[in-house]
């Protein structure tokens, strides 16, 4: 089952809409609450990342009996150093680090912790695509 949500950069009021909708859907499907929690945390973090750091983006969610695949494609600055962005503690990095353009990678460790698999494709100056997979069992 497929869902698509558009995300606008800078619109914090609507940030969290996609995660709320997906959460509602997974609850109705009777997915284990602990799994739903991981999906919501990962997706919310990724969604807010787009709002905070990109110009716009699209979230595609595909729900299958075995799990959910979330693909978040944004048009934005990209992440200059993915390896660094994946380091724990980076999400609490100083504002200076953020200004250096690392911002778009904020929260990646948290997403990765909650996901069964996370892949990142990024091009500086053009955008980032995150693919998050979370299994239901």
């Amino acid at each position: 089952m497929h869902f698509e949500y558009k995300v606008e950069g800078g619109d914090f009021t609507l940030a969290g809409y996609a995660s709320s909708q997906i959460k509602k859907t997974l609850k109705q499907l009777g997915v284990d609450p602990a799994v739903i929690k991981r999906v919501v945390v990962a997706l919310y973090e990724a969604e807010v990342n787009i709002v905070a750091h990109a110009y716009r983006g699209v979230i595609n969610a595909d729900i299958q009996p075995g799990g959910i695949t979330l693909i978040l494609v944004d048009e934005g600055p990209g992440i200059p150093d993915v390896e660094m962005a994946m380091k724990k503690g980076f999400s609490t990095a100083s504002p200076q680090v953020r200004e250096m353009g690392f911002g778009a990678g904020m929260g990646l460790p948290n997403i990765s912790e909650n996901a069964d698999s996370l892949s990142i494709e990024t091009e500086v100056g053009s955008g980032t695509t995150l693919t998050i997979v979370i299994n239901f069992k």
Partner: protein
Amino acid sequence: MNIKHSTYHRALEITENICIGCSHCIKVCPTEALRVFGGKAGIHADWCIDCGECYRVCPTRAIRVMDDDFNKIFDYKHRVLLVPSVFFAQFSESVPRESIYNIIGELGFTEVCAVEQSVDSLIDEINEYVKIEEKPVISSFCPAVIRLIQVRFPSLVDHIMKLLPPIEITAQYYKKRFERDGISDNDYGIFYLTPCIGKIAAVKSPVGGYTSPIHGVLNMDYFYNKVYLAYKQRIPITKTIIINSELSSKGVLFPTTGGESSHIKGKTLAIDGMKNVIDFLEMLENEEIKNVDFLEIRACDESCAGGILSHRNRFLTADSLRSIASKIPDTHNLVDKYKNYCSAVVHMDKIEPRSMVKYDRDIEIAIKKMENARELKLMFPGIDCGACGAPSCEALAEDVVRGQADINACIFLRTIFEKRGEITIKEAIKIMEEIWGKERFDKND
């Protein structure tokens, strides 16, 4: 619609011959547990969380509270009534407390006790609990909130405080006292005067592996009328009653908004009113709320002052409680006694989620059904008119894929089918009569 037309639920019942099928209730239910069929409202008992929102809006009083029969008290020799502080706030301050006690005695009780007597020691227990448990701790005070979390926010059940609410601790206290005095189990009956149906459900089917010692629950609205009538008629007082009115200002205010959270150390919030509660829990579940230690969450606007069986305006009731509290000290004579044994009885087990199976337990089937429901929803007009007997187009779509309603129940689609000649006017009217009851349309003939 062939929804199992259940009209019975633990704490409330729809009286068929009074229900006019007006559909007001189906619109307010936070779990969409109500439908109209055959001109009458019916409840999906599994989904109901005993919040009483439907009771509030029913214009004909067709929704009946499943309280216990008053005469049940006479099955016991010692008849104790646990009275919550909101009960006294139902009366204007000109009615002397003494008269209220005497009338309660005259009506048949041998003893009255203040429900919130246990609050002072409970507050200490909560403070200890909050120190060590995962935060934020959600208060276990309001049964409707516990049930809402079980059904709609299952991922939050572990945050619900595993401590009993004041009513149960107080009930345990009196049970112990009777035992200590060697009074046999069959000789005493503990009754609770409730401001809401949630508390009825909580006593009759408690959560957290607990069994309540309370023998019966009485409707506060009903009892208020009984007492006030006796007061107005100045009935002669011939009986005596034992009064255990020990209560601190903390106890009086505990059932009001902020009356609990204000005593808990750390960062706390008090949230009341069903809509606010749902919005907040939604955010909490998304982990948007950080660094909060304790949450007092109550289903009713103005907490128990706004309970459905509180007959007086909620703001006046809350004001009355504040005024009562301002005149008494912040501790009472039984506090030490309660402290001695509270920690032994106050704990309960983990609360389990109560999943609301919308489509199917098998996820593969559930996904297929949900896909069908999404397609159906696109066909419906999306105005949530309720003319199908369901609270929203989405709810009808779900009912259809569950096999509990027919797509023709939608008045818009029905009109289109009629235009296309796919169904006859006669059939269309029959469907309408099936949903809303035949009699409703007879008057137009």
